[in-house]
């Protein structure tokens, strides 16, 4: 494989590792509650201490998402969000000081044209794409485009993943590996559960890439707990709910809480 420059996201994860702590990755969907509102919210979570932003692209059929993100993406689509807005949000995140990954269902990328999507994302300063409904087996065109445009392809692993599937997924990832903490869809949960630590350990056995954990983390204590064993803690639904209920200042405050949490993990 040709050596490529590490993405900004990859460098941010390495910097966190240097500091001896997990990174905080915050998810927000572009266009919720409005385009301007989502840009303001992204700036607020970066200000609050998010290391990396995961920009969600609202999709009509988000089968990996629970009710909170479903409602937000429905609102964004009804308000006229377009895929073009994603690149605006990525650029805004980078300008605010945080590397950005896009989280997109595959059909939106396919429809724009895989290479064109990658080119537009690279031009906006994005670090890569998280693809919840694309497995490496179906991703040859995307992997080529990602290489061409120096983007990180980030695939998911799950508690159900066999060792063979962990190897397939991690071999195709760059930047980091997204480990789903539980079998299920996005949403806040009372506890993150033991399955997360197990899937992280099994993933580490097959890759040196950072392993970041998503699904179910909503507060400072949970962030601290996951930060003990993961390289990154991904928070989505809780931020979306905070934004919905309290606007940019509330989502910024929650980000600060979570940022404190990831610093307590290995304290």
């Amino acid at each position, binding site marked *: 494989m040709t050596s490529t420059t590490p993405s900004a996201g990859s460098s941010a994860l390495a910097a966190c590792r240097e500091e001896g702590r997990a990174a905080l990755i915050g998810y927000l969907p572009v266009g919720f509650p409005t385009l301007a509102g989502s840009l303001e919210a992204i700036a607020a979570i970066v200000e609050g201490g998010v290391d990396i932003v995961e920009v969600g692209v609202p*999709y*009509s*059929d*988000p*089968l*990996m998402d*629970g*009710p909170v993100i*479903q*409602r937000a993406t*429905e609102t964004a*689509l009804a308000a006229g969000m*377009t*895929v073009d807005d994603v690149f605006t949000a990525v650029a805004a995140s980078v300008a605010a000081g945080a590397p950005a990954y896009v989280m997109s269902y*595959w*059909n*939106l*990328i*396919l*429809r*724009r*044209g*895989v290479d064109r999507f990658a080119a537009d994302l690279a031009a906006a300063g994005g670090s890569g794409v998280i693809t*919840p*409904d*694309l*497995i490496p*087996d*179906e*991703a*040859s*065109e995307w992997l080529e485009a990602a290489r061409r445009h120096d983007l990180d392809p980030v*695939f*998911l*692993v*799950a*508690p*159900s*993943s*066999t060792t063979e*599937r962990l190897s397939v*997924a991690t071999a195709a990832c760059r930047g980091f590996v997204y480990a*789903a903490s539980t*079998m*299920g*869809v996005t949403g806040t949960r009372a506890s993150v559960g033991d399955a997360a630590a197990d899937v992280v350990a099994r993933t580490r056995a097959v890759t040196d890439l950072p392993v970041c954990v998503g699904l179910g983390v909503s507060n400072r204590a949970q962030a601290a707990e996951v930060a003990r064993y993961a390289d990154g803690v991904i928070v989505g639904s809780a931020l979306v709910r905070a934004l919905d209920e309290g606007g940019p200042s509330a989502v910024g405050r929650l980000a600060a809480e979570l940022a404190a949490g990831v610093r307590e993990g290995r304290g």
Partner: protein
Amino acid sequence: MTAALGSPGIGRFGDFGGRYVPEALIPALEQLDEVRRKALVDPEFVGELDRLHRTYTGRPSILTEVPRFAEHCAGARVLLKREDLNHTGSHKINNVLGQALLAKRMGKRRVIAETGAGQHGVATATAAALLGLDCVVYMGKVDTERQALNVARMRLLGAEVIAVTNGSQTLKDAVNEALRDWVANVDDTHYVLGTVTGPYPFPEMVRDFHRIIGVEARAQVLDLVGRLPDAVIACVGGGSNAMGIFHRFLDDASVRLVGVEAGGDGVETGRHAARFSGGSRGVLHGAATYVLQDDDGQTIESHSVSAGLDYPSVGPEHAHLFETGRAEYRSATDAEAMEAFRLLSRTEGILPAIESAHALAGAMVLGQELGPDAVLLVSLSGRGDKDVHTAARWFGLLGDDEGGMP
């Protein structure tokens, strides 16, 4: 825009198919593929399914020639494959019994399903009752209202019916919700997907369980007419009855395979479910196929008087047959389908499902094109009992209206 859909990989029909699902589901899909491959060559499984076909479903389903209806098809001979006479009232039971037996083999105690018109949900609830499995059926709220009778049927059979209130509240949203349930409960749950789409192996497996329709029909037509039909006609929502009846004829080059999609208010109005004239290449619900979508790739909601055809995507093997030209796809509008519904009821005493009435509308057009010497085999995929309310309203037969059908 013609998008390349990805690499030839597992479970492709040409460019179409594949497994566009969360990684979390891959082990379950691989287990399902392994178990169903073994089952299809296991005499015990094959024998049990055959026994259920004969003693429970009522197979083989008969072939009925309909000469009075054929007068409206320019005199062509019209033969109906009577899947409407199956237990539960449609072809759906063929697939469901197969998958429910597989669920038992995999040690799963719970099955879930999506349903549009309710036929697949009723069939799944039936199989679950028969085999002692827990059953949850997801159904768009709009569909629970227009198919209220089937909701009651499922509940009588012991299934839990969950009305899905997000998105367009129709079949596509029921599929989303079923997939979410499956990801969370995959350890003890099998998703009985109801049509020939979704991630591999579903499109191939569901087709194989329905293939019996075409196997029987081909022999029955040869027996009755002494030759193969000129055309085989079936309605296409997801496309399971069509794949079932088409598959045995794929190598019979002289036989035209005609799928009829729901034209809704007319393809030109944008309110339809005609994926092959109004859609384009895309990915939905785990499969690369044809999809109704906007310029950004957001799914466009479909429209049809028929809940069972009201779906913005179609099985990937149909997409392959479309692009290779082996099958042709047309559409019938709501009005054309309802006219065919009226005609079959009045001329033959058979109330077809509104879905199947689309195939009958297709036969009326093909008869005109092929003339009186043609033999047309039509898949009558379901019966119209569930549609009595919709049809009565369409024809103004409710309330104070004393008039009959026009």
